[in-house]
């Protein structure tokens, strides 16, 4: 019965580090809090039997994307010049907090009794492994073959676009 304890522990850390991302003054603090949040989410994925997604979460998100973020933050060497965590409290910030608060209340209350009472049932031991997800992704005649190829084209376009944007002289 350790699974619920682990789930609530990792969820608490994920929520708190997520809060730290948007309240930190220094962008580096934000980025490292986000890495912690991603690791906790990877642990939650493991508890949800999504082993492949958990590995990809650590490799791609906590590894590749966050290294890119930290690299850019250190390259730009920005001083944290804002006086308070949320900047000087402007009308925009107040409206933003109200909108997101209403959104949060709406999301929680929109989950009706069917979702509140839903429980997970046991899955077979193959569920969520690399083999099972790969078979689903590349199944002949399946719906994901074309999107997979389109994603590879999108990544190529993004790489070329990033180089063209960031390079001084092409």
């Amino acid at each position, binding site marked *: 019965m350790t699974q619920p304890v682990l789930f609530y522990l990792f969820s608490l850390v994920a929520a708190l580090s997520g809060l730290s991302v948007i309240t930190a003054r220094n962008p580096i603090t934000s980025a490292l809090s986000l890495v912690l949040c991603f690791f906790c989410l990877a642990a939650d994925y493991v508890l949800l039997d999504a082993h492949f997604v958990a590995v990809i979460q650590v490799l*791609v998100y906590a590894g590749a994307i966050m290294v890119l*973020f930290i690299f850019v933050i250190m390259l730009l060497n920005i001083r944290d010049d804002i006086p308070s965590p949320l900047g000087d409290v402007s009308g925009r910030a107040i409206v*933003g907090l109200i909108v997101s608060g209403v*959104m949060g209340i709406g999301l929680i209350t929109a989950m009706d009794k069917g979702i509140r009472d839903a429980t997970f049932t046991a*899955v077979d031991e193959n569920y969520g492994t690399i083999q099972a997800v790969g078979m689903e992704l590349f199944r002949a005649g399946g719906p*994901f073959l074309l999107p997979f190829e389109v994603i590879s084209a999108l990544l190529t376009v*993004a790489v070329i676009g990033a180089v063209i944007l960031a390079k001084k002289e092409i």
Partner: protein
Amino acid sequence: MESVGLFPVLALSATLFVTGMAGVLTRKNALIVFMSVELMLNAVNLAFVAFSRQTQNLDGHVFAVFVMAVAAAEAAVGLALVILLFRNRITVSLDDLNILKG
């Protein structure tokens, strides 16, 4: 996870999404706004995986992988834009970006 149920997972997902939304709407630093967007994408991934576990099929996992690929592309182009911006204006504050303001 049989003893936890679907609701706590979706509640965490909603909490992270709203946190990211508050960051996007209130912060002025372009890099922190980008990180808040990543947080929102992760919240959606968690909802995908939770519903996938609930219905016992793997479509949600495949979608989560696609979302991560799109997020990687978005991060690469977005950070290139931030570097370009910093080179031209020596700032990453979104308040200073008003050349399109009518």
